[in-house]
């Protein structure tokens, strides 16, 4: 018996280009023109985990709530080895916070069929709330674990999962169905082969809009979101920097002077003035 698995994937603007993002001074909106859309980096680990756990008779369905052009990202996931894809797209879903996003994803997953495990990434590169996995599990009434680093199937309906918090590992036993948000440290995502790309063209990609889902309109998109966005701005960063010149040794002498005035005792390596860490 194989497992029926779903993976939540988010197409995001490529984080390698975030330094180019600007705010339109007049419209006060984020300008992200020219930045390519890619599969959220963390989500590749979720997909890899799914492909490893699937087994010969299992299936992996990828799902995304995103604008129509997300089909491309979903094809990429099919090329990596997923069996089917579902895209939830409708203007009514736009502007959703994590509450409304997870609500809509839950409705899509319920319609897509029965799943034993749902995988997600830990965070999206653009919004990076880390909240969607837990909230989706809550809508489904399933147990979940966030930042899973290792999974072991210990029974037909049971997994042993290791998670990582800042300085501690924890082991859990969880019975299916469950949701796991996979850590970057959990695996190394496979590369796409040419063969995979060819096969992906024939795999099913279903698009569902608002009327296809059993959802309450009042809970969708921005109007359904408990949090509402206000102003956006760029963080204050500027510092008046002094440029140090000279060869390496001359620079070293100047630096030592700067470190001394910052209260570092060069003779001993001690800190003269209290400080550090804000504690």
């Amino acid at each position, binding site marked *: 018996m194989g497992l029926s698995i779903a993976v939540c994937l988010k197409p995001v*603007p490529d984080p390698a280009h975030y*330094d180019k993002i600007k705010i339109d001074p007049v419209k006060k909106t984020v300008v992200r023109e020219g930045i390519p859309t890619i599969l959220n980096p963390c989500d590749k680990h979720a997909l890899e985990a799914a492909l490893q756990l699937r087994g010969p008779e299992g299936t992996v369905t990828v799902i995304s709530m995103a604008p129509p052009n997300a089909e491309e990202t979903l094809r990429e996931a099919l090329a990596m080895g997923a069996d089917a894809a579902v895209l939830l797209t409708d203007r009514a879903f736009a502007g959703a916070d994590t509450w409304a996003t997870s609500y809509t994803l839950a409705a899509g997953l319920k319609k897509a069929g029965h799943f034993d495990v749902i995988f997600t990434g830990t965070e999206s590169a653009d919004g990076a709330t880390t909240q969607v996995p837990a909230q989706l599990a809550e*809508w489904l009434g399933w*147990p979940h674990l966030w930042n899973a680093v290792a999974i072991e199937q210990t029974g037909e309906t049971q997994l042993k999962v290791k998670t990582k918090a800042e300085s501690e590992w924890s082991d859990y036993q969880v019975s299916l169905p469950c949701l796991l948000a996979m850590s970057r440290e959990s695996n190394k995502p496979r590369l796409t082969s040419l063969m995979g790309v060819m096969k992906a063209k024939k795999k099913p990609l279903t698009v569902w809009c608002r009327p296809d889902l059993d959802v309450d309109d009042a809970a969708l998109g921005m109007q359904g979101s408990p949090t509402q966005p206000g*102003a956006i701005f760029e963080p204050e960063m500027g*510092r008046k920097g002094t440029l140090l010149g000279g060869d*390496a*040794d001359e*620079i070293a002498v100047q630096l030592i002077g700067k470190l001394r005035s910052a209260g570092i005792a060069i003779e001993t390596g001690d800190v003269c003035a209290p400080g550090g860490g*804000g504690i």
Partner: protein
Amino acid sequence: MKTTTPADWKGILVVGELSNCRLQPVSLELIGKARELKQTCPAVGDVAAVLIGSGIAAAAAELAITGVDEVVLVDRAECALFHNDLYAAILKQIIEMRKPAVVLFPATARYQDLASMLGIRVDTGVAAHCVDIRINEKAEILAVVPAFGGKVLGDILCPAHRPQMATVKPGIFRQGEPVPGHKPKLTVFDAGSVIADTLKKTRLVALDTSSCAVPEGIPLEKAAVVVCGGWGMGSKENWALLGELANLLGGAVGCTRPAIDEGWMTDESTMIGTSGKVIRPKVYIGAALSGSSHHVCGMKDSDLIISINSDPRAAIFAVSDIRIVGDAKQILTGLIERIRAIRSA
């Protein structure tokens, strides 16, 4: 959708984090911010902190110094190990009974998870990874959250739902002035029945927990000097220079993400930035790193920022007090030699 009457909700609840029965500093940072909010808007009501765990009375006593008005304690053997379903069920009851206007959580692996769950369980919004929180005279919260790796900040409001919830990373807020001799009200919350109910139904079992290997030396967030290296260091041999300099200065070594990917640093807890630590040392020295917004978010509030980059247009220079355009290996070697010469003189 359900909306609530904001006026019925009063007070600020800080969810404190314990790890191994030890109070995590972020709890004190959140109480510091909560007291500030109360000072700005006394109408918001008192500041309470809730702690969940087992054998945590001593940790609870440590909260007195923060000036928190009330400590709510759930000290139960069943809560010894972190269990998201159980902790969330307990917090849901506490929130529904107390009806706080604001609930603040640490944005840590475990506690952001609880905040997310409670957003659905109590039907409200959660502002994630706030870098600032403000309050108006009507006790409405405005949370400032980063997007696109910190390149953009946005205000988040929660107009119609209560409580207003937010998560905050360790290191973002400072602990408040200590209040010696203060005695907060202590409330022991009777969680017996919610624990029994949850454990009967839950499909999750917490088996065990173990500490990750702690990197040697001073933890990044406590170091007065942080020497941080980036991808441009180029090799493990060059990377060793950072450790040498940090040793000489009594500091710690930090890194950007590529250094983890390259295996020059093995412990993710040494990464600085949006997915890593937020630090504020007296001196930050950044070598061969570009200054991506992901990284800058975690170090821009350091007292003195020194950076070394071979590219004069590197973004890190825009947040630096001292800029050195040059080869990081040469500059670091020169500095190490000079300090050694002074020491041996």
